[in-house]
């Protein structure tokens, strides 16, 4: 089983230096694109590879790039931003790549930058990833010294600057337009689309924001081709995917696996099954902002269309498991507390709706709930739906709630009828 992304990552060893990375074939993709491929060639290759954005939305990466205006007469500078603001609860897949092999990310960023002919690139890093910040800083310096960054890279005439920017720890910055505002030094509120960042992004210039894992796939696609990348997968979605499992399992963790392994395989094979005495009740397949899957969905392959078909989202591909010893109401309350706090406060439904939901859930959890509360919760799951709010934060927050009401409705009722939390 090939693990291109994590093959050189060993948890108990320092990441590869530039020299070591080159020795295992690193930066070959940079040489290759600069010598053999046009920017359009790279874009087409990535489009063909069917690489889909690993940040959660799953949009075709090459297609996203193709909206960037190309040619001599376009606004400059153009920007590439690596979204390393990994703050989705339960998600730690990018952290492995950032801490484990920063040169792979840099190489991927050079490939993406070349494809869109970006002049300046940024790594927008989550504030709490201190170790990653050190490793990336070191790697960027090495890459500059080796001539992979800066003016006239490898004599090709192509130039690229790269900077590390650490955020201040706002979930909102994971949203690409809010990230751009934050990077400009403004409040991390999302921007209206259209215009898309490809046209008017960072500082009003054409910009691509890609997830870390997405970018890390690029050197391998360049080196091995689109067909190889597609072949890594078990399903229609190409490549490998770093999946993760957290919760009451024997071996919580993250593993690079072919796209399309099933939920059951992940839990039972890789995470070592549920801990003794704990039963599987449900799982959020791709981070906190995805709908619950339950027992009946365990054999669903973890890829974008299959997870969507059973009413949830692939998201980041890192699941959180709900067990039978944990109160689903308290579980969801904890999530809603997070989302309410991380709302940027820009649009009304999210700013005012999420704290309301949080308060209702807290009162249910305390045994102070009323039958009307279920109605109110249901109302919010619909009213905070996509399109009604400015960005995807609140709709994402409603996904675990709406599915919890669907699958664990009885548990909610019990809180009201018994006037206490049955788990306490």
């Amino acid at each position, binding site marked *: 089983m090939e693990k291109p992304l994590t093959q050189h990552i060993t948890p108990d060893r320092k990441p590869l230096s530039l020299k070591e990375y080159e020795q295992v074939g690193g930066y070959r993709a940079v040489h290759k694109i600069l010598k053999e491929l046009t920017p359009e060639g790279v874009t087409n290759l990535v489009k063909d590879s069917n690489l889909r954005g690993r940040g959660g939305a799953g949009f075709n990466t090459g297609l996203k790039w193709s909206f960037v205006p190309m040619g001599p007469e376009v606004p400059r500078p153009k920007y590439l931003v690596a979204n390393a603001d990994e703050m989705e609860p339960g998600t730690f897949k990018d952290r492995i790549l950032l801490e484990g092999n920063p040169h792979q990310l840099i190489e991927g960023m050079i490939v993406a930058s070349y494809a869109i002919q970006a002049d300046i690139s940024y790594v927008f890093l989550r504030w709490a990833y201190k170790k990653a910040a050190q490793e990336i800083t070191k790697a960027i310096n090495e890459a500059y010294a080796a001539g992979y960054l800066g003016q006239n890279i490898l004599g090709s005439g192509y130039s690229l600057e790269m900077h590390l920017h650490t955020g201040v720890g706002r979930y909102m910055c994971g949203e690409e337009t809010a990230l751009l505002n934050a990077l400009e030094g403004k409040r991390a509120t999302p921007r209206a689309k259209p*215009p898309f960042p490809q046209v*008017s992004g960072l500082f009003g210039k054409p910009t691509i924001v890609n997830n870390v894992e997405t970018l890390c796939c690029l050197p391998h696609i360049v080196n091995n081709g689109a067909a190889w990348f597609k072949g890594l997968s078990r399903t229609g979605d190409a490549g490998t995917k770093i999946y993760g499992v957290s919760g009451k399992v024997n071996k919580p963790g993250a593993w690079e696996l072919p796209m399309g392994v099933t939920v059951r395989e992940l839990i039972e094979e890789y995470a070592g099954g549920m801990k003794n005495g704990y039963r599987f009740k449900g799982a959020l397949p791709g981070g906190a902002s995805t709908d619950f899957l339950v027992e009946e969905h365990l054999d669903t392959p973890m890829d974008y269309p299959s997870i969507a078909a059973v009413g949830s989202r692939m998201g980041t591909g890192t699941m959180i498991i709900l067990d039978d010893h944990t109160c689903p109401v308290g579980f969801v309350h904890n999530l809603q507390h997070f989302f309410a706090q991380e709302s940027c*406060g820009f*649009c*009304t439904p999210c700013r*005012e*709706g999420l704290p309301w939901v949080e308060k209702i859930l807290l009162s249910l959890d305390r045994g102070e709930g009323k039958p*009307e509360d279920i109605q*109110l919760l249901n109302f919010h799951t619909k009213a905070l739906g996509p399109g009604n709010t400015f960005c995807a934060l609140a709709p994402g927050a409603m996904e675990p709630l709406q599915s919890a009401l669907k699958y664990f409705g009885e548990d909610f009722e019990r809180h009201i009828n018994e006037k206490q939390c049955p788990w306490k």
Partner: protein
Amino acid sequence: MATIYIDNVPYEVKPGKNLLEACLTLGINLPYFCWHPAMGSVGACRQCAVKVFKDEDDTKGRLIMSCMEPVRDNIRLSVDEPEAKEFREHVIEWLMTNHPHDCAVCDEGGSCHLQDMTVMTGHNYRRYEYKKRTYQNQYLGPFLNHEMNRCIQCYRCVRFYKDYAGGHDLDVFAAHNHVYFGRHENGVLENEFSGNLAEVCPTGVFTDKTLKQHYTRKWDLTMAPSVCQHCSLGCNISAGERYGSLRQITSRYNGEVNGYFICDRGRFGYEFVNSPARIRKALVRTHLPEAVTKDVALQEIWGELRQARIIGIGSPRASLESNFALKALVGEENFHVGESENDHDLVDLSLKILQDTPARVISMREAESADAVFILGEDLTNTAPMLALFVRQSVRQKPLEQVVQASIPLWQDAAARELVQDQTGPLFIASIAATKLDEVATAICHASPDAIARLGFSVASLISQQSPAVLHLLEEEQAMAHQISQALLAAKKPLIISGCSSGSEAVLKAAANIAAALAEKNGGTGIMLTVPECNSLGLAMLGGHKLESAFEAIQNNYADAVIILENNLYRVADKSVVENFLAKAKQVIVLDHLHQATTDKATIVLPAGTFAEADGTLVNNEGRAQRFYQVYPNPEDIQESWRWLIQIGKALRNPSLTNWENLDDITAALAEADQQFKGLEAVAPPAGFRIAGQKIPRESHRYSGRTAMLANHNVSEPKPPEDPDAPLSFTMEGYRGQPPSSIIPFFWSPGWNSMQSVHKYQEEVGGHLRHGDPGVRLINQPGASFHYYAEVPEDFKPLHHHLFLVPLYHIFGSEELSIISPGIAERAPDPYVAICTEDARAFQLEAGKVLEFAVNKQIFRLPVKINDDITKGTAGLPLGLPGVPYEEIPAWAQIFKQETTWKHQPQIIS
């Protein structure tokens, strides 16, 4: 035009707008908060949701925010669709979760957009049962209250204050449902347009602090359409009264003048009307300390003036009618304009330029769309504040072209700003000292008036060879002139702004030459000149002798009595000259609002109505005549100056005034007497104007307490006072539809109690008022007889032991009437003289130390302020500021060294 279907009814609408604007223009009530017609859309509040459908067969549709969706041909939307209606109701429900429901004690109540929208959406039952979040409020200075608990987070305040008005000290802090709109700490909101927050805020977070001191609900105000008196721009305002005192000024939309906003001087400067220093009864020196009745005063005047040779001194802050009545009373040969020598010349020159220029004399609102601006010698923020606000918008014109190219609608405000970032279009400023607009300027030059003029002439000569060349320019001056001329030539709508405030004719002439040179090549060239007072241009058109000749007439015994109209001569002429003049005149009759130095010396003082107690016409800086209306019946013996003058005329049996009874008679006589004023009668409908036989009420139909408010005096309700001068009633009875635009006392529409109702009065949202915006231009355009000015001044050279005094201005402090208002006075600086560090060192002075100097015979002792934008060899004197005596400047001041002993007592600065 595009066809859109709203609830299956086809409508023709303008393409390029958004659906919210289209709906409102069509008269469809759709609630909104964050969108503002002057500031565009951001999509934050989600209040204006509607359903759109793919086609006729689509029954499900999807919710969209109408403010974020452009008008597209054949788009189908529904405002009434149940899901859309329900969502809008829920948005209010969400907003109300933290709103304190304190309408009963909130200043906004009754004119609150949030109340209106709440009622409009139908939300009334509260389901939220938890605690509300609360905030601490801030002290924001004398103009605004802060009550953050009411905030519904629409973001309008920061968008206006920071993005639109360029303020730096209001922001949004924190996140999620804790977002806070305020300053980083308690303190005065610095921006000169902060008062607009009270109107921009859809609820009671920012409210008028001056109103709070004598609070009245909007529905209880008696309101009249008025025109701001505190600079020459003529911004339209509504003024409201209750119980005989003026309570509030709000902006009155005029699509060609001020648009939606007014400045803080205009909004908060009104309190002089309620000042204890008001003259409320006639005073006759021989009867003092008792006041006299109107009849006694007139009798005294008849007795004293019957045989006298009378001269008159008019006023640039009095209405055309009052000035004309005085002119008629004393005769043309005895009428003097009450301006300083310098102002008189400068305003006359400004008028001549406006009449002759081949460039377009544009209205203020048009300045917003200029794509290259050159300002010569004006600190607009302090002399013509609202124009500065429009110039601030104009610098976005050029960069906004990229927004259009990127197919982003201009109303999509956040997207447009993200693309434009801090790019600005060409704006060049040549001024005496730093101005607030410098921060958005392409290039700036701080210099003496002569150097500004030389730069201007140089720009003009680079554009047209007909304008004289400037010799001996420094290389950097040449480079700047080149840069400016290139930018102006490249623009589609270049605009030249200058005016009287630098005190220099050369600056005005240079500006005139540039405008003419550009107009040779580009018909889109605009020119705007500012003049000192609200009716300076009207007075210049009316014409009159210089003030100096009034002084001579008394001095040489050609006259023995003087009638002074709404003027304090100490502000326009040298103190000793004025003292002599007032002492020598046998009779000094002064009509004014407030006790001041000149009224103190008068033999007879007559209480003249302010803009709140009088009707009249003012001519603004573009030559636009606009009518202001009396707000409430005259308290005590106060009456309009022109009415006093008619009564004096009648008492003296002066044939030119005996047929005049009301304002219309004077305007008709003026239009008859002088071709220039032909258009005056079209400025406003005559007093006899009626709609369906009815007058236009100054009071809302909800006006309360009429039968009770005077019950402590008399239980029977008195007959309402008549207004012989206007088609407006002083009561709540009358026509409730839309009156002609010049006589709209306040904006109101069923369901729209706040200022947001203005769109109901517009042809289209943000456009002209229906049937045209108020005001008539009296200057015909374009002029045909412009001759390039040929005299280029010599370069400024410093003089040993001297400083060249140049005028500086303050929005809060320099203007005579507004400074009487406590709020404005609190914001005014202390007297000072500004010099640069180098000069300060040369005179061995430091900041705060007193500089002693003399101009002509007058001695000044003023604390020094160090300002390195002041050219070496010059000194800035804040003209008009209390404590800074009048002097004709620019002029050379002789500096006294520390060791110099001065035998005269230096002037005490009070």
